[in-house]
């Protein structure tokens, strides 16, 4: 009984990790050039709203 329970629990955890990994991988795989550019744009706009320097402006190496 204990063995079966251990197998079921560890199987469920492994399956969860598998789903997370596959879900994340498919999200990463379907990220297009346009989406990457949109993400950069939204980061730029958020920085402007917060009164910070735009991390994608040419003079900024990065933001902490």
């Amino acid at each position: 009984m204990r063995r079966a329970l251990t197998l079921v629990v560890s199987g469920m955890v492994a399956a969860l990790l598998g789903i997370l990994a596959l879900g994340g991988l498919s999200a990463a795989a379907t990220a297009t050039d346009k989406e990457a550019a949109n993400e950069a744009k939204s980061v730029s706009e958020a920085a402007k709203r917060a009164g910070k320097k735009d991390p994608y402006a040419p003079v900024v190496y990065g933001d902490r």
Partner: protein
Amino acid sequence: MVEQTTGVGAPPVRRVRDALPLYAVAAAVTVLVLAPLAAPGYALLYDMVFVPRQPLSWDLVAPAQTLPRAVPMDALMSLVTQLVPGWAVQRVALGGAVLLAAVGAGRLVPTERLAVRLLAAVAYAWTPYLAERLLIGQWGLLLAYAALPWLVRAALDLRAGRDGALARVVLAAAPAAITPTGGLIALGTVVLLVWDRTRLRRSALVVGGVALLNAPWVTAALVTGAGGSSDPAGVAAFAARSENWAGPLVALAGTGGVWSAQATPSSRAAPLVPLATLLLLILAGVGAGLLRRRLPPGTAVRLAVLAGIACLLAALGVLPGGAAALRWAVVHLPGAGLLRDGQKFLAPYALLLVVCAALGAERLVARIDREVAGVVLVGLLLLPVAVMPDLAFGGAGRLRPVSYPADWQVVAERVAGEPGEILALPLSAYQAYPWNPGRVVLDPLPRYLPGTVLTDDTLRVGDVAVAGENPRLREVRRVLAEGLPVSATGVRWVVVQHQLPSEVDPATLRDLEAVHEGPFLTLYRNPAVPPESNPPGLGAWAVVMALGAALLVVMAAAISALHRRPTAW
């Protein structure tokens, strides 16, 4: 290190059969991480700059006015791209780094269980360290990361007195030493793992060999006009960064914590990430004893000391008193500027953590029955990917190849005919090009154009401006700040880059002759300055000599290694 399943004594067919799954998993991880590089072009992201054919210019071999951050990497790139196009070199370098990191870590684990090796391979090739250094474009550092398990293995073989290990130590250290940081990591690894007072001659020979691999950048640092000190503002700007609620020390414990938010995968901000780090640390703690028992006496302690030094250097900027000490050091100690971005030294810790965690998993599953053990190992294999899936596919699309506009080649050809100093405007170290959307990259002009290209060396991190070291740039900035025309800077050529957020005031370009006007670049000639090629100074020749000595050491090691093989192929 100990390799029990694929020992030297095993028949070749069995050795190949045993190694195949490891190489297959490593190849799968490599494809998963670098899939976008299947498209043609150049992936240009932050410090990652590859060009079709990098000119073999003196300024790339021995920078006269800047610190040698890319010595001898640039010289090697210039040599290699004379024969192989830059796009191919980029794929070989990045693909080789991920593949060899995975295989090296897998082979390093002293275990008989293949699943444990696979676990180490995936975990080492899927660390936040690899992801962050890839996304900040520091591919030279990735080569050092990939070389590290091979170097550790060769160093331990040398301690054990195995045949040919000395040559393998030098060969494994060579790719690491293409950047100053990688060279120092390799040297520290060799000093700590190989040094043996009872075998002084052998120890001195191998340490001397690896020290010689560091000679090019050390020589370049001694002869550059940039001086040895750096801006202390960089200490806070480049200190380890918190990824989530747990703070920078926990980020470092999970091998992350790079200073740049843009180079950190978004998944690292998730609130559960510190729990995954905790799990990894517990597993590593469980496996540490096994590692100590399976390695020769004292070896695990040496590895732990190496990892401890790596952690200390990485955390120095955020430890109480550490930042102040570092600020003093970068001003007063020549070369201490290397320590500002301390997280890059974390590679030895990442390796020990992964090896111990893999052994911890082995110890864990040894207590449970076979079916459950298989399920647990599969779960642990998936854990790094589940926690940080956005490393896949080039950091979820951040690494995507683009083509240089045709303008760039035209300008390179025009400049090649009349040598002289080139000024790139607008003055900025990093650029965001419309043809490389959503990405910032170190201005590629210094690597694309033949000759000395002046670009700004001030690094802006958020609101902080970290001053560069180039005295010639300081002079150019002073001239422009005084409102004088660009022609007064004394440069022969001026390249103005268009379609960028900042623009160049046309009034500053008076007195210049436009020789090429394209949609992305305009090239101006300064008629007040005649074409001239400055002969290299003694310092530049000293760097070439050091580079030659390092290449000789590598060639000698390669010949020695080939002679010891039953067949050379």
